[in-house]
């Protein structure tokens, strides 16, 4: 029964993501990464064959605008999470080994956790101007402390096990031990965390760009799209509904994928207790 549910989460998550990201990527490739054309003469065009969802106040095709936005938002989230995962994991492993360096890392993580991501974003954006880089940095800077904590906790529970002692007896140095024993054994946790982080990162991305702290136009992204369409909530409710639902579908997809992966990857081996779901 649990197996069935496992597969359900995984299947539903992947299906949602595929349904969203495949057309998004195709649109992106088809338009070679450019924003859909502005065509003032055809603003608010109704639903038609060439505009499956109609056009927006600038005459852009809503479908391809939102899909390109979905692609861009996802790319930003993926880069940010990759950064956070790589840096956070490395630092988390240092922290797990303890010592002065480990303590320093943990204090830094505490500091990072005390700064809400929006503060980082607001400051970076004012300093740098709105840019994708600033946004990625803000999301990653918030993700790193969390990643450090997760990694440290996970690595810690591996490092006390006797096979780590055995590896030391075998003469492995700490880097080899990490590469051969710690990382493979905490990988499922990291993978699951990465997919839930992706969901969170997408939400942050949408929130930041909604506030105007995200990447600048003309490249569409979901939060800014929502912000600029929100005024039409009465006269053209679809304009607000479509990007909102797209964010939700993507986030839900990553969340479900995370659930599914957790069951798939963690079940056969010892599950570490106390991992957040």
């Amino acid at each position, binding site marked *: 029964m649990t197996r069935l549910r496992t597969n359900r989460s995984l299947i539903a998550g992947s299906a949602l993501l595929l349904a969203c990201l495949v057309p998004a990527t195709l649109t992106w490739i088809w338009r070679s990464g450019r924003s859909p054309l*502005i065509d003032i003469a055809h603003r608010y065009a109704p639903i038609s064959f060439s505009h499956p969802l109609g056009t927006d106040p600038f005459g852009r095709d809503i479908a391809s605008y939102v899909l390109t936005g979905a692609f861009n938002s996802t790319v930003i989230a993926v880069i940010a999470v990759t950064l956070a995962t790589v840096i956070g994991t490395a630092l988390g492993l240092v922290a797990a080994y303890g010592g002065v360096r480990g303590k320093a890392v943990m204090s830094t993580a505490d500091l990072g956790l005390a700064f809400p991501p929006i503060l980082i974003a607001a400051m970076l954006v004012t300093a740098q101007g*709105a840019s994708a880089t600033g946004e990625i940095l803000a999301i990653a800077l918030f993700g790193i402390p969390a990643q450090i904590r997760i990694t440290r906790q996970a690595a810690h529970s591996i490092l006390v096990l006797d096979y780590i002692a055995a590896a030391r007896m075998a003469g492995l140095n700490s880097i080899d031990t990490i590469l051969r024993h710690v990382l493979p054994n905490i990988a499922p946790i990291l993978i699951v965390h990465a997919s839930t982080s992706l969901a969170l990162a997408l939400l942050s991305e949408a929130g930041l760009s909604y506030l*105007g702290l995200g990447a600048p136009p003309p490249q569409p992204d979901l939060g800014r799209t929502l912000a600029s369409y929100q005024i039409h909530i*009465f006269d053209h409710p679809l304009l607000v509904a479509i990007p909102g639902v797209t964010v939700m579908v993507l986030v839900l997809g990553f969340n479900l994928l995370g659930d599914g992966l957790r069951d798939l990857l963690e079940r056969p081996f010892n599950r570490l207790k106390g991992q957040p779901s």
Partner: protein
Amino acid sequence: QTRDTMSIGVSIEPPGLDPTRSPSEAIGTITYNNVFEGLTRLDRDGHVQPLLARAWTVSDEGRVYHFTLQENVHFHDGTPLTCENVRFSLLRAGATSSTNPDRTFFTNIADVSCPDTTHADITLKKAHGSFTYELTWNDASILSPSSADKNASHPIGTGPFLFQAWQRGDHVTLFRNPDYWGKAPELKAVTFRFMPDPLAASNALLAGELDAYPSFPAPEILGRFAGNPNLKVVRGTFPFKAILALNNARRPFNDLRVRQALAYAIDRKALIQAGADGDGTVLQSHMAPNDPDYAALPDRYPYNPERARELLKEAGIKPGTQLTLSYPPITYARDTSEIVAAYLEQVGLIVTLQPLEWPSWLGRVFGQGSFDMTVIAHTEPHDIGIYDRDNIYFHYKNPQFHELFEQYEASDNAEDRHRLSVALQDRLAQDEPNVFLYSRPRDTVLNRRISGLWIDQQIAACPMADVTWQP
């Protein structure tokens, strides 16, 4: 029964309420002729009228002004108005330590002398034809030395309304001045509520939480008020001039052909479609249609991308040239920039959009003049003179324009001034230092029973003394 309070929506919260410290339009909206009064005032048609100065004469070839002050005027804290207040206020505005936004204007005042408490004689360094016009500005308000330094948080003037409270982030409340020297206002209290989000503002209007919203910022949702029995939308004018400012000191904008090409490349009617929902005027020069001196010049640069490409080719600009378009954080600037970028892309230019928030825009673009292109609307009335400034951010310099402007400034004959003003506009239209985009009307949403509210904007102001509820 008739109501005696009113709440007015404004789109931005002022940074303090002291007009001598900040040029923010929001300060004017709240305080101009409500809390503060100057020697003169602008009426709703844009004409100069006496206010604290009952009358005046000019002597010494326009260099000395003799003002007679209103009597029995008291500041809200009870101090009586005397010539000393005029002297204090005007000299303070021009002092070296002054933070007045228009300090250069006040430095032209050589001295203010007080023959008695109700007369003030102002001596200028240089004759200035529009002196009494500029005295109508909010930053020329007459203040009391005892309260001047605290005006930002607790403004005290001589106006018909007393400052009552400021819930920061939400509203400012003004209360009727029971001891007002002039005609007492009918409204007992006026609340200015800060509602930057047009959607929230429209909700509040529909819900009756707001009675009026002058200068409603989103023409695209005015349709929501159409069927409402309580509300109406009134269309007025204001000196709104949206331009695509170009850095004339930088290549390739120092080449007239390039500037012309940009003008040809942009379909300005489409911009009005998107930016003002179709209702606006394509500008040919730096003057809004509501200006008495406005000249309806011929459209020199109708939309013609072919011609634009040719001109660019002539100027040696290769397709794929990269340009940066910076813009401040306002809806019209963002939307217009995005569309302009799309049009320029069609003639082979690649435009990077650079959103800046106000401080950066002011610092980088306006202050240092370091930018390629920027979209901005100038909303000051009658400001063609900025094209003659030395340090103007778009770095326009033209001897012919300068000469014309000198003549214009020196002249005090109304006809000559008009003729010269048209010539100035035409000069700019030929030079196209910036691409003049469009002007748009000013929409006020208000309760049908309100009367007396300013519909046209002559100056950033919302005088409430004459506003009443009709039964």
